[in-house]
């Protein structure tokens, strides 16, 4: 049996937090919504919705262009987010932060721009066995184009990377190591600091996919010494369609632009174009201004909650959930790393995840079912798919009880 933690987290009030999320106040199929799919996308607090509305109702104008008042306001609000992201990721300078559509685009920007220029035939790119498709396919495409080699860090049955094997993969041909900070399918928190240190010793660069880490743990790109770090706005309680790529200035300066267009130029003639300085060199065209402003509001919100308290609370939820789910006969948790974020991926004997997902949905419980865009992870554990309950700071112990009750119902139907 799972027991409730005795120690409440000082300064953390989940009931008050839930009040900030209007979407959570609804019933689905006649039952209170239990939203356990935050790893797919996190819900948005009113502060984010209000900031986007305010932009559209009051400040709406294009940025970096007009001398008029509205354009100046929108430019200021958008650029303020860049500064907020710098603080959130503990980067040195604002120019190191490029606005992108999301983590996927962040990775593609690096694989296209840096990769095309610096990767040569016979070079090697290292990824890991637990990567999301977005951190596999762009590198595969690059390797195919350049005749380079893609190598994969293996993992154990807990879903932990084999660091000895990783070290053996590194060699003078290794150009880039691209790994997830936190695995979306398993919840594993990877030892990225160590991964980066070893890569640097071998002369390779490192890109960290921070999509699942940013909402749950403190990220300090300088302490990590990450060369590139990328994250999505919608997973940190902001809107979709906006994300961040962090890159060290020296590296970004050496890279060619990703896309051409307005805003990324200084002077254009038909003979020649001079590119803009960082970060604008990588930001062609009118960006997702409303999204950027919404992301700023989301980071303010998370900062007010204190990421350390959030992490501590989520750890309690995870421990409680792990105990409660493990007690269900025939249920197996996939991903049991010792360092783990609040993700509970599991399979049930003889019952397909899609059937579990449908029965839970009818009880108002939203979980993700499928391969979680990590088919190699499913192959490794020899399952076609899993059911994944992913938690955020607005979830409660009561919601985990609801999940357990829901799974009992699943067993009743398919017994």
């Amino acid at each position: 049996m799972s027991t409730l933690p005795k120690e409440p987290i000082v300064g953390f009030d989940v009931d008050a937090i839930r009040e900030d999320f209007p979407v959570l106040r609804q019933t689905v199929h006649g039952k209170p919504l239990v939203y356990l799919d935050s790893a797919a996308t996190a819900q948005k607090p009113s502060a984010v919705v209000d900031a986007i509305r305010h932009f559209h109702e009051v400040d709406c104008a294009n940025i970096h262009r007009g001398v008029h008042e509205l354009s100046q306001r929108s430019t200021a609000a958008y650029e303020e987010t860049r500064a907020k992201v710098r603080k959130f990721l503990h980067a040195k300078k604002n120019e190191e932060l490029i606005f992108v559509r999301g983590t996927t685009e962040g990775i593609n920007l690096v694989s296209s721009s840096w990769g095309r220029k610096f990767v040569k035939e016979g070079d090697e790119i290292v990824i890991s066995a637990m990567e999301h498709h977005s951190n596999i396919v762009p590198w595969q495409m690059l390797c195919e184009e350049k005749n380079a080699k893609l190598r994969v860090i293996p993992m154990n049955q807990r879903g932990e990377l084999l660091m000895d094997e990783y070290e053996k993969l590194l060699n003078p041909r290794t150009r880039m190591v691209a790994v997830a900070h936190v695995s979306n399918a398993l919840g594993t928190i990877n030892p990225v600091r160590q991964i980066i240190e070893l890569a640097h010793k071998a002369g390779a660069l490192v890109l960290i996919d921070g999509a699942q880490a940013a909402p749950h743990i403190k990220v300090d790109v300088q302490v990590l010494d990450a060369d590139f770090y990328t994250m999505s706005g919608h997973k940190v309680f902001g809107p979709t369609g906006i994300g961040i790529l962090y890159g060290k200035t020296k590296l970004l300066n050496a890279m060619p632009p990703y896309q051409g267009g307005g805003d990324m130029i200084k002077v254009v003639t038909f003979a020649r174009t001079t590119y803009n300085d960082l970060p604008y060199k990588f930001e062609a065209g009118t960006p997702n201004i409303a999204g950027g402003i919404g992301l700023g509001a989301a980071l303010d919100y998370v900062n007010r909650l204190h990421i350390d308290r959030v992490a501590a609370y989520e750890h309690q939820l995870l421990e409680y959930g792990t105990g409660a789910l493990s007690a269900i006969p025939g249920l197996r948790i996939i991903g049991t790393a010792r360092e783990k974020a609040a993700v509970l991926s599991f399979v049930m004997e003889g019952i397909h995840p899609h059937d579990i997902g449908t029965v839970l949905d009818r009880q108002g419980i939203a979980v993700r079912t499928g391969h979680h865009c990590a088919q190699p992870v499913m192959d490794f554990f020899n399952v076609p798919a899993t059911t994944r309950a992913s938690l955020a700071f607005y979830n409660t112990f009561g919601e985990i009880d609801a999940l357990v009750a829901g799974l009992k119902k699943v067993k009743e139907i398919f017994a």
Partner: protein
Amino acid sequence: MVHDLYQETILDHSKRPRNCHPMQDATRQAEGYNPLCGDKLKLYLKMEGDIVKDVSFVGSGCAISTASASLMTESLKGKSREEALKMLERFHELLTTDVEVTKDLGKLVVFCGVRDYPARVKCATLAWHTLKSALTNSNETVSTE
């Protein structure tokens, strides 16, 4: 209610699928794949002229896709190629439109509940897409995507 979807017949066929085995002397076969759920299915047909003499399948999938494959094999035996394709069309209509449920689909009408679960239509039609591929003799794996 979720029981409208998981009717007794469906649960029965998902737990004890009929005609679920490889076929040595199949004259046609095809593979189906649903990348969303990872469901895989291999369908075997033994045709005698234009008639489906025997049909079987192997694969792994959810209750809906397994039951659908099982019930499909039961309804196909003895049907002509044209009748089988017509049945596919009717079955698809049953799942995706408000068409009145009629008796000519026989046991297959138990899948009418799927229309209230749009995300599950692909599960129910995987076997039928694979059948179409086997009958039209394209050897590529069909995907529901």
